[in-house]
C-alpha cells in the first residue's frame, strides 16, 4: 500500500473514531451550554450505554436497533436522575462544588459498574456479520459504515430538535439567558432534564457503536474517550453544538494520522497537543466567538 493511500485509509479510520468522539462531545457541550457545568460523569454514561446495549442484546435477545433504542432510553434516564439527584441541589452553589460532584459521580458509576457488571473485559455480542467494502484502493468495514450512519442520523435529529422544536427553542433561550427565559415562562428544570436526557442518549449510542467496533467493553472504558471527547468539545468551542462535531472529527483524524506519519506512542499526546495549539490561537475554540448563541 503506497503512502498516500495509507493516509486515506487512516482518514477513514480517523473519521470513524472521530464520529464516536463527536457523539460523546455533544453531551458535554450541550450541558455546558445550558448550566456551565463540565459533566465529568458523561464518559461513564457512555460506558453504561455500552453495558445496557450488551444486556439488551444478550438477555432481552433484542437485535441491534431495538437494543440501541432501549440502551439510549435507559441512559437518558440515568442522565436525568444524575442531574436531579446530584447536580440540581447544588445549582446555586459555587461552580467548583458541582464540578467536584461530577467527578465523584464518575467514580461512583465506575465502581458500581465494576460491582454489578464485573470487572472483567466482556466481548460485545456481534449482532452483525463482518463485512469489508472495497472502495478503490481503500476499504471501509460495515462497522465503520454503521458508526457513520448512526452518528450522522443522530446529529441531524439533534439539529432538528434544537432548531425546530419548542424544547429546542427553550434550550437555546435558557442557554442565552436563564433568568429571561424563566420570565418568559420556560420551565427551566424540565429543559435542563431534557438536555441531560438528549446528551446521555447520544453517549449511549456511541457506547454501543464502540462495543460493536472494538468488541470489548469494561467498566473503565469511559475514562479515556470521555476525556478526549471533552477535549474535542473545548477544541470546537464548548457550548457550541457544531463545534463538538468538528472537534470530535478533528481529534479522531489527528490521532490516526499521527500514527501514519510519526510514532504510535505519541498518539494520545498529540490529541492534547492539538488542543493546546488551537487554544493558543483561538481561546474560545475553533467555532467560538464572543456572544454566540449556545445550547
Amino acid at each position: 500500500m503506497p503512502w498516500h493511500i495509507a493516509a486515506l485509509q487512516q482518514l477513514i479510520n480517523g473519521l470513524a473514531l472521530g464520529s464516536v468522539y463527536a457523539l460523546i462531545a455533544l453531551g458535554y457541550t450541550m450541558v455546558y451550554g445550558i448550566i456551565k457545568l463540565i459533566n465529568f460523569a458523561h464518559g461513564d454514561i457512555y460506558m453504561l450505554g455500552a453495558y445496557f446495549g450488551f444486556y439488551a442484546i444478550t438477555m432481552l435477545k433484542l437485535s441491534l436497533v431495538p437494543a440501541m433504542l432501549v440502551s439510549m432510553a435507559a441512559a437518558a434516564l440515568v442522565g436525568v436522575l444524575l442531574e436531579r439527584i446530584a447536580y440540581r441541589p447544588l445549582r446555586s452553589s459555587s461552580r467548583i462544588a458541582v464540578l467536584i460532584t461530577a467527578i465523584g459521580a464518575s467514580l461512583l458509576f465506575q465502581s458500581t459498574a465494576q460491582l454489578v457488571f464485573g470487572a472483567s473485559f466482556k466481548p460485545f455480542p456481534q449482532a452483525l456479520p463482518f463485512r469489508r467494502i472495497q472502495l478503490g484502493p481503500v476499504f471501509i468495514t460495515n462497522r465503520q459504515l454503521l458508526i457513520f450512519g448512526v452518528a450522522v442520523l443522530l446529529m441531524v435529529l439533534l439539529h432538528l430538535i434544537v432548531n425546530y422544536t419548542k424544547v429546542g427553542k427553550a434550550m437555546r433561550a435558557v442557554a442565552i439567558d436563564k433568568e429571561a427565559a424563566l420570565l418568559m415562562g420556560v420551565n427551566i428544570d424540565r429543559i435542563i432534564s431534557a438536555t441531560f436526557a438528549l446528551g446521555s442518549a447520544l453517549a449511549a449510542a456511541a457506547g454501543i457503536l464502540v462495543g460493536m467496533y472494538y468488541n470489548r467493553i469494561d467498566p473503565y472504558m469511559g475514562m479515556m474517550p470521555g476525556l478526549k471527547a471533552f477535549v474535542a468539545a473545548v477544541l470546537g468551542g464548548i457550548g457550541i453544538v457544531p463545534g463538538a462535531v468538528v472537534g470530535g472529527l478533528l481529534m479522531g483524524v489527528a490521532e490516526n494520522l499521527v500514527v501514519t506519519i510519526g510514532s504510535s506512542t505519541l498518539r494520545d499526546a498529540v490529541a492534547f497537543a492539538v488542543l493546546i495549539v488551537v487554544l493558543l490561537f483561538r481561546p474560545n475554540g475553533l467555532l467560538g466567538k464572543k456572544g454566540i448563541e449556545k445550547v
Partner: protein
Amino acid sequence: MSRSNKLKAMFVCVSLIFMLAVPSLAQGDTIKIGLISSLTGSVSTYGQSVRNAVTMAIDDINAAGGINGRQINLVILDDKGDGTEAAQAARRLIDRENVALILGPVITPAVMAVAPIAQSAGIPMLTPTGTGDQITTVGDFIFRGAYKDSFQGRIMAQFAIENLGLKEAAIIYDVANDYSVGLREAFKSTFEELGGKIIAEESYSTGDTDFSAQLTSLAMRNPQALFIPDYYSTAGPILMQARLMGMDSVMLGVDGWDSPDLSALAGGFEEGGYIVNHYSADVDSQVTQDFIAQYTAKFGQAPDALAALGYDGVLIVAKALEAAGSTDPEALKQALGTVGNIEAATGTINMDPEGTPIKSAVILKITGGKWELVDRIDPIGR
C-alpha cells in the same frame, strides 16, 4: 483525635485482635500459604484458573494427610491484575496473616510489585505463572513455576524461521507492559539473529481499544507474520481488527493468549494462529492426563495453561515444604531452589537456585477453535 476517629481506632484495634486471635485458635499445627490471584479485572480468566487449580491441588494434599502431617491453610486474595492491589495484598499476607509462603501473583506487572516486598520481608514467594525475566532478579526469595519470557520469545522466533520458513515479520506490542516489552525484545533479537527481518513495529498503551491506526500502518508493509505479545483481552481485539483490515499475515502469539475468552474477544479470527505455551492437553503423560480429568470433572471446563501452572506451583511448593521439614524461611528458600524431578502437569520440573525451573515448552496452533500441539521444545540450558 476527634471522637469518631477514636471510635474508628478502637474498631481497628478490636478487629486486629480478632484477626490475630482467630487464626491462632483455629490453626493448630497448619501451614499457612497465601495466594494472590487476579480473580477480577482485565486478566480475570487467568486468576480464576490459577485459583481453581491451586485449591484443587491443596485439597488433594490435605485429604492425603497434609505435608509432614500438617494441613495446609490457604488464604486467597484478589489483586485485580493490578500492581498496587497486589502490593497491598502482599502486605496483608505478610503482616497480618503471617503466611509461610506467598503463591502468586499471576501476571508479571503484579509480580513485580510484590517481589520486593516478599524479598525484604524474607518470605519465600513463588509465582506459578509470571514469565517476566526481571522477576527472579529481585532476590533469592523469589521463585517462579513458569519459563521466562526471553525463553518463550526465542522459541517463537526460532519456530517462525525454522519451522514456518518465515523471513520477515512485524510486531505490535504494549509499551506500558513489561511482559509485552520483554517478549518483543526476545523475539526481535532471535528473529534477526537467525537471519529474519523485522520490517515494522507499532505500539500502544495498556487499556487502548482502537488499534486501527497502528494496524493500517502495519498492513501497508504487508508482513508475512505479525507477532502480538500481549494478554488475551488485548490480543483478541487486535486479531479481529487486523483480520477485518484484510491482513493475511501468520499470527504469532504467546502464553498470554491462552484463555477461554480469547475466541469471543477475537470474534473467531484467532483461527490459524500459533502460540508458545507451557503445556498442551495432547501431551501423553499420566500426570497431565489425570490432572485434566480431575480438573474437568470438578470445574466443568478443560484446564488452560494457567490452571496447569497453578497446579504445578502447588506441587513445587509441597515438595519444597516436605524437603525443608519446616516453614523456616531460610530452609524453605533453600529447598525451593533445589527440589527436582517433580512429575507435574506441565512436564518434569527441576528447580534452579536462580529461581526459574528448567522445563519444556510447546507450540500450539488454533485449528477449528482448538489448541493443537504442533511441536514440543526442550529447554536449551536454562
